[in-house]
């Protein structure tokens, strides 16, 4: 356990991973491109579906919560933007994250023939799904920015912090991908567990509602869910226009870096044995 948190090992692994990803960036981007294209190749709308699916989901949520339940948020100085913006600020990063988790848990098995037969940096595989997802997420973020411009006639100054939170999220996604990819190769059940976890976790995240709306006794669940901190950071940037959750930034930064390194270390340890289980 000591070695898991020993800063020396972690720093070394961090440097190793950053070097590795820099070296293989071309391959990573090429594979990410391939993943996006491949999934929808031969279809009439093609890659438009990458946007299409989440878009439909978002409209459903907006319809249900804004029009059916008539959830009212916004208009005050505390809550500057409308409900749609509030929901999207949390939903966009969460959709990306849960998408990555689902794909990462099968990435090794799905690429079994490459893993078994090509001398090639396996570390690239989980990262390429992250990159592919980030592309979609970026498109949504741009769409949200446009929406904010239209409804609010200006962008929040906190948009300057968007790259920071985006990078932190990327680190966290890479780490979690490594973890799930490595374990998923051994226990195929991981895919199913992740799927259910994503469904459940979504509802114990402050995405559709404000934390204040949750009974105090249950509010602790939000703090236990590590993804809440990412959501709060994104909401600070995209919705609140101020650092409303400073401790969330601290926790999220720390968690992201830790997961990034530890996930990679687990992957590095287990990857030599992938050939045995595929």
């Amino acid at each position: 356990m000591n070695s898991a948190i020993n800063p020396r090992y972690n720093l070394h692994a961090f440097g190793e991973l950053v070097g590795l990803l820099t070296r293989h960036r071309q391959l990573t981007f090429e594979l990410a491109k391939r993943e996006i294209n491949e999934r929808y190749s031969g279809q009439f709308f093609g890659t438009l579906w990458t946007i299409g699916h989440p878009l439909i989901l978002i409209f459903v949520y907006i319809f249900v919560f804004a029009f059916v339940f008539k959830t009212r948020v916004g208009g005050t100085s505390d809550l500057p933007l409308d409900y749609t913006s509030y929901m999207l600020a949390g939903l966009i990063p969460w959709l990306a994250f849960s998408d990555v988790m689902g794909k990462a848990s099968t990435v090794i098995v799905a690429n079994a023939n490459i893993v078994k037969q090509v001398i090639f940096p396996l570390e690239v595989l989980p990262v390429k799904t992250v990159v592919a997802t980030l592309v979609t997420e970026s498109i949504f973020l741009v769409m949200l920015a446009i929406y904010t411009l239209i409804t609010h006639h200006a962008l929040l100054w906190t948009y300057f912090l968007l790259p920071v939170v985006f990078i932190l999220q990327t680190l966290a996604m890479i780490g979690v991908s490594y973890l799930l990819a490595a374990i998923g190769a051994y226990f195929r059940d991981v895919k199913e567990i992740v799927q259910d976890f994503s469904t459940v976790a979504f509802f114990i995240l402050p995405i559709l509602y404000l934390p204040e709306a949750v009974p105090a006794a249950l509010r602790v669940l939000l703090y236990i869910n590590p993804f809440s901190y990412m959501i709060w950071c994104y909401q600070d940037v995209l919705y609140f226009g101020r650092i409303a959750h400073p401790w969330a930034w601290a926790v999220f930064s720390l968690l992201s870096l830790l997961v990034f390194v530890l996930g990679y270390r687990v992957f590095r340890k287990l990857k030599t044995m992938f050939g045995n289980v595929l």
Partner: protein
Amino acid sequence: MNDSNDLAIRVANLSKMFKIYPKPSDMLWEAVTNHPRHKPFWALKDISFEVKRGQVVGLVGRNGAGKSTLLKIITGTLDKTSGDVQVNGRISSILELGTGFSGEFSGRDNIYIGGLMVGLSSQEIASKMDWIIEFSELEDFIDQPFKTYSTGMQARLTFSTAVCINPDILIIDEALSVGDARFQRKSFDKIAEYRRQGHTILLVSHNTNTISEFCDYAILLDGGRIYDQGDPYRIGEVYYKMLFASDSLSFPAVGEHANDPGETELEIDAETLAKAAEEIPLEAGNFTHEKGYTWWADLSAYDIEGDSSEHPKRSIYVLCEDGKPLKPGHWTHEFIRKYGNGSYSHWGKALYFSTSDNSDPRTNRRAYCLKRRDLQKATEKVEQKVEVLSPKEQERAAMRAQALEKLGLQKALYQNNPHLMRMGNKKAEILDYGIMDESGNRTTRLTSGSKYTFFSRTVFYEDVEGSTFGFVIRNLKGVDLFGTSNRAQKMETLSRKKSDLVEARLDVSMWLTNGTFFLTVSVADPFAEEDVQYDLLYDGFQFDVQMKEGIFTTSVINLDAKLAITQLN
């Protein structure tokens, strides 16, 4: 040492064990409880060899011998269990067609990604792109999706991409056998060029000609061990022998099962087998003691009690080593070592017997393991049982002894060859067979163009309504070259009485040319709709034919040709 610099690959005492879990959940339980739940399967055991720089080394072996596992460990896509592997230089491998290539993408895109995967930069790939397209001869198709390519085209693209990175060590696993002959030629020219430039090549092939033509050195794997290594031509011959020796003909499935970590071979536990062994009725003389070893019993030639037509055979093989059950891969290895070469063997002995199962005996055989101690127990019982023969068995033994005496034999000829495959319901037994030359002497070395007599001598144990005696000649590849029987010749297929001793003679002119051939002799029921053999000795007799000079050595048959050349002007 200067030596180590000359080495491209050094493998020392390499072993690879796959953990075979009966259920996937067992893997989880093992991880949680730390209590082993897997069965070990040794895909490679104690492999040692060296490949020098600039050498072309051929790797041969049957399916399941461990070739692919070895290549994967050398390339680094699979970890080793113990031992040492050193690789000096950059490796490129072609383990499978189109690996890493995506069907949806064009050939060009796939070259690009394939190049990135093996570590080239996009500039490097761009500079090699034209060469790859030209070498693969896919100019007209390179922008079509890869999935539309034929296997030959896929092979061409795979090979071209793999060689373009100019590796120090090139590993090729049979990928070349798919391309057409001309591209194969071109690929081999490329390989030859690589060799001249001092690159190292490790080549897996099933084609012994390829091995002997291109390789400087060859390694023959069997059952996860190095069976033999050395001169490619000689290894090619040993491999051929291994492939076409009759015992391997009878167990095609064993090796494949052996290499499949997902499948467990040990379906019957030792106790059950020992019990089963006690149940086997035996006749006298059907097992032999091996000096210094637990003996091995060959029960294959004998029936389970009763009419064997009710018990279509499915043989089960039991192989054992001191205290440790053996995996099936090992025992074929052992059989060949023992009976193919006649050399020393340190493995346990086999016991195999039949159970009733409606399946083809040749494809459904499997190996099972039994501890030597248990085998001994089982076989001791069996030995005791030998003393007690049923009246029917006694009668049969008497008929047999009488027939053998009349033929002047100690035992049936096929018993000299314990790994021979024998089929039939045993209403008759072919005691003697072979080939005689014109002066009546037995021979195994025939001269093309001479006359010979093939013969079989059969004792009948039961009254049968008819009998047809067959002869078939096969070549090493198992192709039927010639066959006939008295039924095929529209001759009488007479009924036979118990204890009849019948000789069938087939006079032939030997018009085959150089080569090794196998003779199958049989006696069958001429009236049965499907083949009902009383007895059949599959490829039971091996002989060589030699050609006197006068025709091309590549000729398959001798047409007894007279050549006349006349000047016409």
